[in-house]
Protein backbone atom coordinates (compact mmCIF):
# COMPACT_ATOMS: atom_id res chain seq x y z
CA UNK A 1 0.00 0.00 0.00
CA UNK A 2 1.38 3.41 -0.96
CA UNK A 3 2.42 5.72 1.87
CA UNK A 4 3.48 9.20 0.77
CA UNK A 5 5.61 9.88 3.88
CA UNK A 6 7.59 6.65 3.57
CA UNK A 7 8.02 7.08 -0.18
CA UNK A 8 9.35 10.61 0.24
CA UNK A 9 11.86 9.51 2.88
CA UNK A 10 13.10 6.79 0.52
CA UNK A 11 13.27 9.29 -2.31
CA UNK A 12 15.40 11.67 -0.24
CA UNK A 13 17.82 8.89 0.60
CA UNK A 14 17.99 7.84 -3.03
CA UNK A 15 18.76 11.36 -4.14
CA UNK A 16 21.36 11.85 -1.42
CA UNK A 17 23.07 8.65 -2.48
CA UNK A 18 22.90 9.83 -6.07
CA UNK A 19 21.11 6.74 -7.32
CA UNK A 20 17.97 6.40 -9.43
CA UNK A 21 14.69 5.05 -7.98
CA UNK A 22 14.30 1.29 -8.23
CA UNK A 23 11.47 -0.31 -10.14
CA UNK A 24 9.12 -0.60 -7.15
CA UNK A 25 9.66 3.04 -6.22
CA UNK A 26 9.31 4.18 -9.80
CA UNK A 27 5.91 2.46 -9.93
CA UNK A 28 4.85 4.32 -6.79
CA UNK A 29 5.93 7.59 -8.35
CA UNK A 30 3.85 6.85 -11.42
CA UNK A 31 0.83 6.27 -9.20
CA UNK A 32 1.14 9.30 -6.88
CA UNK A 33 1.30 12.77 -8.45
CA UNK A 34 2.24 14.39 -5.11
CA UNK A 35 5.22 12.11 -4.61
CA UNK A 36 6.23 12.68 -8.21
CA UNK A 37 6.17 16.44 -7.62
CA UNK A 38 8.11 16.01 -4.38
CA UNK A 39 10.73 13.93 -6.18
CA UNK A 40 11.12 16.57 -8.86
CA UNK A 41 11.44 19.41 -6.34
CA UNK A 42 13.92 17.51 -4.17
CA UNK A 43 16.03 16.55 -7.16
CA UNK A 44 16.10 20.13 -8.31
CA UNK A 45 16.96 21.47 -4.86
CA UNK A 46 19.83 19.04 -4.33
CA UNK A 47 21.10 19.49 -7.88
CA UNK A 48 21.05 23.24 -7.48
CA UNK A 49 22.91 23.03 -4.19
CA UNK A 50 25.62 20.83 -5.69
CA UNK A 51 26.04 23.19 -8.64
CA UNK A 52 26.18 26.11 -6.25
CA UNK A 53 28.88 24.47 -4.11
CA UNK A 54 30.99 23.76 -7.17
CA UNK A 55 30.45 27.23 -8.58
CA UNK A 56 31.73 28.92 -5.45
CA UNK A 57 35.20 27.43 -5.76
CA UNK A 58 37.72 30.24 -6.05
CA UNK A 59 39.37 30.74 -9.48
CA UNK A 60 42.67 29.03 -10.28
CA UNK A 61 44.50 32.32 -9.72
CA UNK A 62 43.54 32.22 -6.05
CA UNK A 63 45.40 29.03 -5.15
CA UNK A 64 49.10 30.00 -5.52
CA UNK A 65 48.56 32.77 -2.97
CA UNK A 66 46.63 30.44 -0.71
CA UNK A 67 49.43 27.86 -0.71
CA UNK A 68 52.09 30.53 -0.21
CA UNK A 69 50.26 31.80 2.87
CA UNK A 70 49.84 28.25 4.14
CA UNK A 71 53.55 27.56 3.65
CA UNK A 72 54.38 30.65 5.72
CA UNK A 73 52.14 29.42 8.50
CA UNK A 74 53.70 25.96 8.36
CA UNK A 75 57.20 27.44 8.56
CA UNK A 76 56.13 29.57 11.52
CA UNK A 77 54.76 26.46 13.20
CA UNK A 78 58.04 24.63 12.52
CA UNK A 79 60.31 27.34 14.03
CA UNK A 80 60.04 26.39 17.71
CA UNK A 81 61.48 22.96 16.95
CA UNK A 82 65.19 23.03 17.93
CA UNK A 83 67.71 20.90 16.15
CA UNK A 84 69.51 18.68 18.66
CA UNK A 85 73.03 19.93 19.42
CA UNK A 86 72.39 23.34 17.91
CA UNK A 87 73.17 25.97 20.50
CA UNK A 88 70.56 28.67 20.78
CA UNK A 89 71.27 30.71 23.93
CA UNK A 90 68.08 32.76 23.79
CA UNK A 91 65.88 29.72 23.40
CA UNK A 92 67.87 27.84 26.07
CA UNK A 93 67.53 30.70 28.54
CA UNK A 94 63.82 30.86 27.87
CA UNK A 95 63.47 27.15 28.34
CA UNK A 96 65.48 27.36 31.61
CA UNK A 97 63.09 30.01 32.97
CA UNK A 98 60.18 27.99 31.69
CA UNK A 99 61.55 24.96 33.56
CA UNK A 100 61.43 26.82 36.85
CA UNK A 101 57.74 27.47 36.48
CA UNK A 102 56.69 24.29 34.78
CA UNK A 103 58.96 21.63 36.27
CA UNK A 104 57.34 19.15 38.63
CA UNK A 105 58.61 18.52 42.17
CA UNK A 106 58.21 15.19 43.93
CA UNK A 107 56.16 15.73 47.08
CA UNK A 108 54.73 12.95 49.28
CA UNK A 109 50.97 12.67 48.85
CA UNK A 110 50.05 13.48 52.52
CA UNK A 111 52.27 16.56 52.47
CA UNK A 112 50.78 17.64 49.19
CA UNK A 113 47.28 17.15 50.50
CA UNK A 114 48.10 19.09 53.66
CA UNK A 115 49.49 21.98 51.63
CA UNK A 116 46.41 21.95 49.41
CA UNK A 117 44.14 21.86 52.48
CA UNK A 118 45.94 24.80 54.07
CA UNK A 119 45.68 26.80 50.88
CA UNK A 120 42.04 25.87 50.54
CA UNK A 121 41.40 27.00 54.12
CA UNK A 122 43.21 30.24 53.50
CA UNK A 123 41.30 30.88 50.32
CA UNK A 124 37.88 29.68 51.41
CA UNK A 125 38.10 30.85 55.04
CA UNK A 126 34.72 32.24 55.96
CA UNK A 127 35.30 35.85 56.15
CA UNK A 128 34.08 37.57 59.33
CA UNK A 129 32.14 40.57 58.34
CA UNK A 130 34.18 43.52 59.43
CA UNK A 131 32.57 45.82 61.87
CA UNK A 132 31.56 48.95 60.20
CA UNK A 133 33.98 51.66 61.05
CA UNK A 134 32.43 54.70 62.49
CA UNK A 135 33.84 57.65 60.82
CA UNK A 136 33.35 60.77 62.74
CA UNK A 137 32.85 63.64 60.48
CA UNK A 138 32.35 67.00 62.04
CA UNK A 139 29.07 68.32 60.82
CA UNK A 140 27.85 71.71 61.77
CA UNK A 141 24.27 71.51 62.95
CA UNK A 142 22.26 74.46 64.06
CA UNK A 143 20.03 73.66 66.98
CA UNK A 144 17.32 76.18 67.81
CA UNK A 145 17.59 77.26 71.41
CA UNK A 146 14.33 78.11 73.14
CA UNK A 147 14.93 81.10 75.33
CA UNK A 148 12.78 81.05 78.46
CA UNK A 149 12.31 84.30 80.37
CA UNK A 150 12.99 83.96 84.05
CA UNK A 151 9.99 84.70 86.18
CA UNK A 152 9.90 85.06 89.94
CA UNK A 153 6.71 84.03 91.51
CA UNK A 154 6.06 85.09 95.10
CA UNK A 155 3.65 83.16 97.11
CA UNK A 156 2.58 83.45 100.69
CA UNK A 157 2.49 80.10 102.35
CA UNK A 158 0.46 79.72 105.51
CA UNK A 159 1.46 76.98 107.84
CA UNK A 160 -0.50 75.68 110.70
CA UNK A 161 1.36 75.88 113.97
CA UNK A 162 0.28 74.47 117.35
CA UNK A 163 -1.42 77.18 119.33
CA UNK A 164 0.26 78.34 122.52
CA UNK A 165 -1.74 78.51 125.67
CA UNK A 166 -1.53 81.82 127.43
CA UNK A 167 0.67 81.89 130.53
CA UNK A 168 -1.24 81.40 133.77
CA UNK A 169 -0.81 84.00 136.39
CA UNK A 170 0.76 82.77 139.65
CA UNK A 171 -1.78 81.68 142.18
CA UNK A 172 -1.90 83.90 145.27
CA UNK A 173 -3.38 82.82 148.62
CA UNK A 174 -5.74 85.68 148.47
CA UNK A 175 -7.30 84.55 145.28
CA UNK A 176 -7.51 80.86 146.34
CA UNK A 177 -9.55 80.09 149.52
CA UNK A 178 -7.97 76.62 149.85
CA UNK A 179 -4.56 78.10 150.21
CA UNK A 180 -5.88 80.75 152.60
CA UNK A 181 -7.20 78.10 155.00
CA UNK A 182 -3.87 76.32 155.08
CA UNK A 183 -2.00 79.41 156.04
CA UNK A 184 0.00 78.90 159.24
CA UNK A 185 -0.28 75.11 159.08
CA UNK A 186 2.80 73.23 160.11
CA UNK A 187 2.93 69.51 159.50
CA UNK A 188 3.48 67.45 162.78
CA UNK A 189 6.04 65.26 161.28
CA UNK A 190 7.54 65.22 157.86
CA UNK A 191 6.78 62.28 155.69
CA UNK A 192 8.85 61.48 152.73
CA UNK A 193 6.74 60.31 149.86
CA UNK A 194 8.01 58.53 146.89
CA UNK A 195 5.81 58.83 143.86
CA UNK A 196 6.04 55.93 141.47
CA UNK A 197 4.98 56.84 137.90
CA UNK A 198 3.93 54.04 135.60
CA UNK A 199 5.04 50.45 136.10
CA UNK A 200 8.73 50.87 135.52
CA UNK A 201 11.03 50.32 138.43
CA UNK A 202 13.73 52.48 136.89
CA UNK A 203 11.61 55.52 136.91
CA UNK A 204 12.01 57.63 140.01
Amino acid at each position, binding site marked *: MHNCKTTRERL*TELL*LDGSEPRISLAAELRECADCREEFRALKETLG*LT*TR*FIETTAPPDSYWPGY*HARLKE*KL*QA*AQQPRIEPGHYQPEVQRRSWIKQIFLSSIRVPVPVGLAVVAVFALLIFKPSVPAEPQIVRVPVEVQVPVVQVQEKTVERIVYRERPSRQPKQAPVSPESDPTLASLEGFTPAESVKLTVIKGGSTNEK
Partner: protein
Amino acid sequence: MVPVTDNEKELIRRAQADDANAFSFLAERYARRIYLLAFHYCRNAQDAEDLSQEVWLKAYQALAGFRSDSSFYTWLRRITINAFLNHQRTSFRRPGQAVLVELLDADSERVFESRATSPETIYNKVLFESVMTAMAELTPTQRLMFLLRHYEGMSYDEIATAMNCSAGTVKKGVSRAIAKLRAKLDMDQDEPEQLTRLAAEC
Protein backbone atom coordinates in the same frame (compact mmCIF):
# COMPACT_ATOMS: atom_id res chain seq x y z
CA MET B 1 36.67 6.74 0.25
CA VAL B 2 39.71 8.18 -1.50
CA PRO B 3 42.32 5.45 -1.84
CA VAL B 4 45.81 6.09 -0.60
CA THR B 5 48.03 5.84 -3.65
CA ASP B 6 51.67 4.81 -3.49
CA ASN B 7 52.62 8.35 -4.32
CA GLU B 8 50.43 9.63 -1.48
CA LYS B 9 51.90 7.09 0.92
CA GLU B 10 55.34 8.33 0.04
CA LEU B 11 54.28 11.95 0.55
CA ILE B 12 52.76 11.10 3.92
CA ARG B 13 55.91 9.24 4.98
CA ARG B 14 58.09 12.20 4.01
CA ALA B 15 55.75 14.68 5.67
CA GLN B 16 55.84 12.60 8.84
CA ALA B 17 59.62 12.98 8.70
CA ASP B 18 59.16 16.78 8.88
CA ASP B 19 59.36 17.40 5.14
CA ALA B 20 57.23 20.53 4.76
CA ASN B 21 57.38 20.36 0.97
CA ALA B 22 55.86 16.89 0.93
CA PHE B 23 53.12 18.16 3.19
CA SER B 24 52.52 21.09 0.85
CA PHE B 25 51.98 18.63 -2.02
CA LEU B 26 49.39 16.82 0.08
CA ALA B 27 47.73 20.14 0.89
CA GLU B 28 47.58 21.08 -2.77
CA ARG B 29 45.81 17.82 -3.50
CA TYR B 30 42.95 18.37 -1.03
CA ALA B 31 42.98 22.13 -0.36
CA ARG B 32 40.14 22.94 -2.76
CA ARG B 33 37.80 20.38 -1.23
CA ILE B 34 38.53 21.43 2.35
CA TYR B 35 38.22 25.09 1.39
CA LEU B 36 34.80 24.55 -0.21
CA LEU B 37 33.55 22.73 2.86
CA ALA B 38 34.82 25.56 5.04
CA PHE B 39 33.34 28.21 2.75
CA HIS B 40 29.86 26.70 2.78
CA TYR B 41 30.05 26.00 6.44
CA CYS B 42 31.03 29.50 7.60
CA ARG B 43 29.70 31.42 4.53
CA ASN B 44 32.57 33.87 4.39
CA ALA B 45 35.63 33.78 2.10
CA GLN B 46 38.12 35.12 4.63
CA ASP B 47 36.86 32.85 7.41
CA ALA B 48 36.96 29.93 4.97
CA GLU B 49 40.63 30.56 4.21
CA ASP B 50 41.53 30.94 7.88
CA LEU B 51 39.54 27.89 8.89
CA SER B 52 40.85 25.66 6.10
CA GLN B 53 44.45 26.70 6.80
CA GLU B 54 43.89 26.00 10.47
CA VAL B 55 42.85 22.50 9.43
CA TRP B 56 46.13 22.06 7.53
CA LEU B 57 48.19 23.30 10.45
CA LYS B 58 46.45 20.90 12.81
CA ALA B 59 46.91 18.09 10.32
CA TYR B 60 50.61 18.88 10.07
CA GLN B 61 51.00 18.83 13.84
CA ALA B 62 49.04 15.58 14.17
CA LEU B 63 50.53 13.84 11.16
CA ALA B 64 52.93 11.77 13.25
CA GLY B 65 49.86 10.03 14.71
CA PHE B 66 48.36 9.13 11.33
CA ARG B 67 48.22 5.39 10.73
CA SER B 68 47.18 4.15 7.33
CA ASP B 69 44.16 2.24 8.65
CA SER B 70 41.92 4.86 7.01
CA SER B 71 42.46 7.02 3.97
CA PHE B 72 44.39 10.25 4.38
CA TYR B 73 41.33 12.23 3.33
CA THR B 74 39.05 10.47 5.87
CA TRP B 75 41.58 11.33 8.58
CA LEU B 76 41.85 14.90 7.30
CA ARG B 77 38.08 15.27 7.17
CA ARG B 78 37.86 14.24 10.81
CA ILE B 79 40.26 17.05 11.72
CA THR B 80 38.23 19.40 9.54
CA ILE B 81 34.97 18.56 11.32
CA ASN B 82 36.60 19.05 14.73
CA ALA B 83 37.99 22.40 13.62
CA PHE B 84 34.54 23.42 12.35
CA LEU B 85 32.87 22.44 15.60
CA ASN B 86 35.45 24.39 17.60
CA HIS B 87 34.95 27.34 15.29
CA GLN B 88 31.19 27.05 15.80
CA ARG B 89 31.61 27.27 19.56
CA THR B 90 33.65 30.45 19.33
CA SER B 91 32.55 32.32 16.24
CA PHE B 92 28.89 31.75 15.48
CA ARG B 93 27.68 34.12 18.14
CA ARG B 94 27.52 37.12 15.94
CA PRO B 95 24.34 38.11 14.13
CA GLY B 96 23.96 35.98 11.00
CA GLN B 97 22.16 38.56 8.91
CA ALA B 98 25.07 40.98 8.93
CA VAL B 99 27.43 38.24 7.74
CA LEU B 100 25.04 37.25 4.99
CA VAL B 101 24.77 40.76 3.57
CA GLU B 102 28.54 41.15 3.60
CA LEU B 103 28.84 37.78 1.91
CA LEU B 104 26.37 38.45 -0.87
CA ASP B 105 28.05 41.70 -1.74
CA ALA B 106 31.61 40.48 -1.67
CA ASP B 107 31.61 36.81 -2.57
CA SER B 108 29.04 36.75 -5.34
CA GLU B 109 31.04 39.53 -6.99
CA ARG B 110 34.22 37.51 -6.56
CA VAL B 111 32.67 34.37 -8.06
CA PHE B 112 31.12 36.06 -11.06
CA GLU B 113 33.57 38.90 -11.65
CA SER B 114 35.23 37.22 -14.63
CA ARG B 115 32.06 36.59 -16.59
CA ALA B 116 30.85 40.09 -17.40
CA THR B 117 27.09 40.68 -17.49
CA SER B 118 25.78 38.02 -19.84
CA PRO B 119 22.22 36.73 -19.24
CA GLU B 120 23.74 33.49 -18.03
CA THR B 121 25.83 35.35 -15.50
CA ILE B 122 22.86 37.26 -14.18
CA TYR B 123 20.82 34.10 -14.01
CA ASN B 124 23.59 32.31 -12.15
CA LYS B 125 24.00 35.26 -9.84
CA VAL B 126 20.32 35.19 -8.97
CA LEU B 127 20.55 31.46 -8.35
CA PHE B 128 23.73 31.91 -6.32
CA GLU B 129 22.08 34.46 -4.11
CA SER B 130 18.95 32.40 -3.57
CA VAL B 131 20.94 29.27 -2.66
CA MET B 132 23.21 31.32 -0.44
CA THR B 133 20.18 32.80 1.32
CA ALA B 134 18.64 29.35 1.67
CA MET B 135 21.88 27.93 3.13
CA ALA B 136 22.01 30.84 5.55
CA GLU B 137 18.62 29.78 6.90
CA LEU B 138 20.14 26.55 8.19
CA THR B 139 21.75 26.34 11.60
CA PRO B 140 25.52 25.73 11.52
CA THR B 141 24.98 22.15 12.69
CA GLN B 142 22.30 21.47 10.06
CA ARG B 143 24.52 23.00 7.42
CA LEU B 144 27.46 20.85 8.43
CA MET B 145 25.35 17.68 8.52
CA PHE B 146 23.87 18.49 5.12
CA LEU B 147 27.27 19.22 3.57
CA LEU B 148 28.77 16.04 4.95
CA ARG B 149 25.86 13.91 3.80
CA HIS B 150 25.16 15.53 0.45
CA TYR B 151 28.47 16.95 -0.69
CA GLU B 152 30.89 14.59 1.04
CA GLY B 153 28.69 11.52 0.69
CA MET B 154 29.28 10.38 4.26
CA SER B 155 26.86 7.92 5.82
CA TYR B 156 24.69 8.89 8.79
CA ASP B 157 26.78 6.67 11.05
CA GLU B 158 30.05 8.21 9.90
CA ILE B 159 28.69 11.73 10.49
CA ALA B 160 27.32 10.69 13.88
CA THR B 161 30.73 9.36 14.95
CA ALA B 162 32.52 12.45 13.70
CA MET B 163 30.08 14.86 15.30
CA ASN B 164 29.70 12.85 18.50
CA CYS B 165 25.93 12.41 18.30
CA SER B 166 23.46 9.70 17.30
CA ALA B 167 22.71 8.64 13.73
CA GLY B 168 19.07 9.55 14.36
CA THR B 169 20.06 13.12 15.24
CA VAL B 170 22.06 13.37 12.02
CA LYS B 171 19.20 11.96 9.94
CA LYS B 172 16.79 14.45 11.48
CA GLY B 173 19.25 17.31 10.93
CA VAL B 174 19.76 16.45 7.28
CA SER B 175 16.05 16.00 6.73
CA ARG B 176 15.28 19.40 8.25
CA ALA B 177 18.03 21.03 6.24
CA ILE B 178 16.64 19.62 2.98
CA ALA B 179 13.10 20.65 3.93
CA LYS B 180 14.28 24.21 4.60
CA LEU B 181 16.26 24.38 1.37
CA ARG B 182 13.37 22.93 -0.58
CA ALA B 183 10.94 25.46 0.90
CA LYS B 184 13.31 28.34 0.14
CA LEU B 185 14.23 27.19 -3.34
CA ASP B 186 10.80 25.88 -4.22
CA MET B 187 10.54 26.86 -7.84
CA ASP B 188 8.02 26.00 -10.46
CA GLN B 189 9.35 24.11 -13.39
CA ASP B 190 9.04 27.10 -15.65
CA GLU B 191 10.77 29.50 -13.26
CA PRO B 192 14.29 28.96 -14.63
CA GLU B 193 12.95 29.97 -18.03
CA GLN B 194 11.38 33.04 -16.47
CA LEU B 195 14.66 33.93 -14.86
CA THR B 196 16.52 33.45 -18.14
CA ARG B 197 14.02 35.67 -19.89
CA LEU B 198 14.36 38.27 -17.15
CA ALA B 199 18.12 38.12 -17.43
CA ALA B 200 17.96 38.51 -21.21
CA GLU B 201 15.89 41.67 -20.80
CA CYS B 202 18.48 43.29 -18.54
